[in-house]
């Protein structure tokens, strides 16, 4: 128990002080924001993948929808960055909530396939509906606006935006943590461990899968909203199934049984993408693919999985 407090304290301390130590090891704040954005999306996905045991392969749909929600909201309706984030989160969450009943009955590979199908439908809508979404070229022409805090106006430069993202990341991570310690979270884990037994115990498994799917969608929408603001741009690629696969990679690479696993996975994934592509501009995929194969074969429980295993052995 106390170990958990130390680990959590260390993680938050590192995240809060990133602006101080990150430049020392050659990083930059936009990179840190990107890590947090993807970590948040992967943590949301992991609620479904690692804790409820449902193989979602279409999480990019809600990630991208959150982005489009935010982008369109900023373009047409408001200049408030915070309201735009809320709008994107609602769009992503609402879509997941509405499509939940379609996916909640499916299991295993069928669950993966129906989530892919829904994701691809959104992808092609975003790609083809030129007048509304900007089509294949993506949606540009919006930008994150300065924050009005009442006593001061803060322009969202790289450092300020990192803390803006961190604020929402903390909310998202806090919600997931609370959830996992609540009866609802325990029910999710029960479904993962033995779906049939959970059913015998009188749990409405499908309803809980729906809940997990919708909550993951809310988190993905939030992350997608932040992603759109990070780039001031959103493209159909963010909805494509490959993006969903990347989120799954992050969760599994870091460790899908661990709370912080997706964060570790996102650090590695985004870090490799950034670091390797500055030396081998076109070949970072080989590195990530190779690392991923090694991970799946030798440590299927992810990087945090090895750490935990070693701690148990010691």
């Amino acid at each position, binding site marked *: 128990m106390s170990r958990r407090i130390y680990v959590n304290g260390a993680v938050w301390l590192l995240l809060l002080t990133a602006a101080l130590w990150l430049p020392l090891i050659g990083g930059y704040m936009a990179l840190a924001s990107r890590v947090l954005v993807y970590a948040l999306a992967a943590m949301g996905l992991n609620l479904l993948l690692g804790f409820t045991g449902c*193989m979602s392969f279409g999480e990019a749909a809600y990630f991208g929808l959150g982005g489009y929600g935010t982008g369109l909201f900023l373009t047409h309706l408001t200049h408030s960055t915070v309201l735009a984030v809320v709008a994107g989160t609602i769009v992503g969450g609402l879509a997941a909530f509405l499509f939940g009943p*379609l996916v909640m*009955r*499916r*299991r*295993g*590979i*069928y669950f*993966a*396939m*129906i989530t*892919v*199908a*829904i994701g*691809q*439908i959104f992808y*092609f*809508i975003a*790609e*083809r509906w030129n007048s509304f979404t900007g089509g294949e070229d993506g949606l540009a022409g919006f930008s994150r606006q300065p924050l009005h805090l009442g006593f001061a106006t803060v322009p969202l430069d790289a450092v300020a935006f990192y803390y803006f993202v961190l604020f929402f990341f903390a909310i998202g991570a806090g919600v997931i943590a609370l959830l996992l310690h609540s009866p609802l979270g325990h029910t999710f884990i029960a479904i993962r461990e033995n779906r049939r037994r959970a059913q015998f115990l009188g749990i409405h498994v499908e309803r809980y899968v729906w809940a997990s799917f919708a909550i993951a969608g809310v988190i993905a929408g939030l992350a997608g909203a932040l992603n759109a603001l990070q780039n001031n741009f959103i493209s159909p690629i963010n909805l494509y*199934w*490959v993006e969903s*696969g990347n989120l*799954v*990679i992050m969760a*599994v690479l870091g460790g899908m049984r661990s709370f912080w696993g997706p964060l570790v996975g996102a650090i590695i994934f985004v870090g490799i993408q950034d670091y390797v592509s500055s030396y081998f501009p*076109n*070949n970072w*995929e*080989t590195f*990530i*693919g*190779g*690392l*991923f*194969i090694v991970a*799946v*074969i030798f440590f*299927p429980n992810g990087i945090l999985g090895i750490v935990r295993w070693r701690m148990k052995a010691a």
Partner: protein
Amino acid sequence: MELLLFDGFNGLIQGAFYALMALGLSLIISLNSVINFAHGGFMVVGAYLAYTLAPYIGFWGALLAGPILAGFIGIIVERTLVRHMYGRPDPIYSLLLTFGFALIIEDVVRTIWGAQGVPFEIPAALGSPVSTTYFFLTGYRLFVIAAIAVATIALFAFLRLSRFGIRIRAGILDLETVSTLGVNVYLLRSVNFAIGTLLAGFAGVLAAGILQLAPTMGDDVIMATFVAVVVGGIGSLLGSVLGGLLIGLAAGVTTAYYPAASDVVIYIIMAVVLIVRPRGLLGQEGLFE
């Protein structure tokens, strides 16, 4: 009417092509229990190898060599990587492993042959239209359909008539029993994986004559192939053929009426199938759940 015929025929070709891909994927899913995300990658590899070899051994030689090399690479991958996945009941690991491998294939192909698409030359004899009224009936398109039909029939004959093929079918039903009866199931799975990737390579070479070759061409095809397998029913080879033809035709007919929806229609079909009849057209219930 002319337009509908044109798009319908295009859809049929595309469907035949999906059917061939789905057949290989279905074999691998059924016997190896591996959700092979790299299947599109093997298709791309087969096509590019054929493209490189064609100037030396001609179109017909490349049409044979490309798929055989893809099958050979399939055996290597199965022996080195995929075999680690056999003991794991959760299909997610095989899916993720092959996903990682697909990333590598795409990257390597881009590095060797470039990110730009390259055209693939087909023999002049096959390139000309067969009739003037139906201008879209080039000899090559008819040849593609015939070649896919021959390959499909040959595969089914192999699975029905040869001892090895019968063992593969038996293994799909119950691998443990087949193993107990003294059949080398390791060899069985390796060869089966190779047949699957060989079919993917064959599809790639055939497609190369119609489309341009591009490193990313596997990304869209692999998803459509999964759609074909799911619509036809996981575990059913005949179902995969039907599923492929069905979604190809549906995409073609949609192009005639509402082109913007031609890509999305196959996913709508899959979603409807998964909701109404989750096991697909001819699949068994409960596989891979």
